[in-house]
């Protein structure tokens, strides 16, 4: 659905994105990167609000810049502070539904559907000026989905939402992606992105650093072995035994808490298989273990911060 071919965008001397090539198809893709990485520039290129300085951007095989045919099939939820304070939520969604081309005969029911979906039916008749940040976020999402677009671009859509709201919206995005739509979500909240999708597009300083399944990407980062934190009353003895495994590179005890042990390994799957066996055989009481590395945050940290 989205194809970027060596796309670059400069703002004078400032690089927005630099030589980015990628294809994004149906399903949910998370767009990740630190502040100023170029996420918003990429989204604006895709939504046709910016033209690439060099390279090409195609959406539905057409150039999106000022292309109303493409806009008809896009739903965009930007990260904006606020919107029309004097309008009610229903009016706001209805106006944008009208701009999207929904005929007046079907507009009311379609707006009602969209508002219900984001949990705003009860507050739809209130002015946006009186909405909380989370409610504004929901209304923005409603206007993005009201015309049932094939491509949904969501810039920090979970900002301001309470935990229940985050869960609801996450489920909605997943459902939309499962129904064959292309959903691109940018977010800083990595653990929530992890709940939504495993497919990521990571950009940093305008360059694309990685794209694909987060666990596959993690496995490819050889420079950083997996770390596994284990809590066990006999941590020192357990560390000695674990170092006998050839794939365990190091084991270190926590100075503050000698029941905490951190192991580094290049074969995490093998390690996860062997650890329970060892614990059962030698009678170690492993009360807790976690892998702070095998997640999106680790991938983000290693690829972005080096």
């Amino acid at each position, binding site marked *: 659905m989205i194809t970027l071919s060596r796309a670059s965008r400069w703002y004078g001397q400032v690089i927005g994105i630099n030589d980015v090539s990628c294809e994004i198809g149906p399903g949910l893709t998370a767009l990740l990167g630190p502040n100023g990485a170029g996420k918003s520039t990429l989204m604006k290129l895709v939504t046709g609000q910016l033209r690439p300085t060099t390279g090409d951007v195609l959406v539905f095989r057409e150039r999106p810049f000022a292309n109303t045919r493409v806009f008809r099939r896009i739903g965009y939820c*930007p990260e904006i502070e606020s919107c029309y304070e004097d*309008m009610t939520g229903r009016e706001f969604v209805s106006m944008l539904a009208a701009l999207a081309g929904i005929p007046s005969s079907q507009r009311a029911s379609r707006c009602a559907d969209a508002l219900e979906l984001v949990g705003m039916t009860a507050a739809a008749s209130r002015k946006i000026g009186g909405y909380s940040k989370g409610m504004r976020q929901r209304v923005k999402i409603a206007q993005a989905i009201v015309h049932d677009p094939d491509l949904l671009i969501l810039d920090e859509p979970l900002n301001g939402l309470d935990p229940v709201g985050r869960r609801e919206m996450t489920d909605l995005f997943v459902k939309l992606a499962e129904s064959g739509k292309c959903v691109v979500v940018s977010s800083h909240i990595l653990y929530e992105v992890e709940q939504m999708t495993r497919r990521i597009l990571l950009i940093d300083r305008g360059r694309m650093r990685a794209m694909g399944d987060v666990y596959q990407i993690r496995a490819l980062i050889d420079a950083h072995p997996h770390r596994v934190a284990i809590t066990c009353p006999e941590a020192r003895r357990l560390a000695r035994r674990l170092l006998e495994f050839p794939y365990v590179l190091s084991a270190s005890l926590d100075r503050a808490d000698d029941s905490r042990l951190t192991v580094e390994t290049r074969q995490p799957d093998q390690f996860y298989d062997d650890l329970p066996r060892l614990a059962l055989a030698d009678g170690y009481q492993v009360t807790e273990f976690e892998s702070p590395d095998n997640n999106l945050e680790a991938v983000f940290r290693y690829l972005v911060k080096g």
Partner: protein
Amino acid sequence: MTAGPEKPTDSPASVVSPIADVSYRHYDGPLHSRALRWWIVALAGIRQALRKWWFWLLVMVSMAPYAFTGLLLFVQTRLGADVQQAMLGMGSGARFASLFFQAFDGQLFWLMVIGLTVGAASIAADNRTNALQVYLAKPITKTDYLLGKWMGVFVVVFVAALLPALLLFLYCMLSFWREGFTREPWLIIKILGASAVAAAGYASLVVGISAWCRSAMVSGALSAGVYFASSIIAFVLWATLHLRDLRAGDMTAGVLVQNASLSGVIKSVAWNIYDVAIRMPGRPGRMFTPVEIHPPELWIMLTAYVAIVVGGIIGARIRIRAVEVISG
């Protein structure tokens, strides 16, 4: 007549679930490509203006010059013909057009204020909230958006200018049918033209300035500043250069300088449309012998007017961007 089969009342299928169905429902209806997409944008702006009580107050106040003119006309019907002539100074020419123009002149300031209330925030508020990103990601063009914002101001100011004029027109038509009202058949066209001139001028100024601001307050202050500054400069220039001309009873040269302001340009174009002479008290010691002032040169004022309208629209169009592009 046979009774149909009874509907089951308590079977699980017939019971409406108390839990709302919030599953995603696809939209399979049409998506129209509208020719008048700008009207949706305009309508949103107009609706917001109509909701404010003080907007209606301004509209009422702006009607006062026409109400006053109507009142004068009503009073003169109760007085003798000589008093009528002296009080209203109406000659045998386009006397109703003259009345309408003077009422229009009195209303111009309020039309500017109405334009400000409707248009100062029009694009500035979108700039502040980045709502342009939402708008311009929908299937509308930049031109649709700008036209919508411009029309949102134009329509409101136009109706505010036209409505009291039409009411007065109706009153005159009903009351002065035999007193020469029918001798001015183009009056209604002149009213429409003058109202449109004021609406287009103010809409272009206000929207043009609004596009360059990120706050309604700054936009309103700038627009008002341009309005008042140009009026003050024009007045000072006129008083310095041409006041003695008024005393001498000749305003031919002075009228151009006097109207070399934003409101003056709009007024002058409307004045040319009404094509009437204004009478002002002139020579010292002969206050009841008024000086006739004719409208300034049309081509000069029309050029200035077109510059204001086109400048405002082009200025806004240059500035309207969904994203702020940093250069340098």
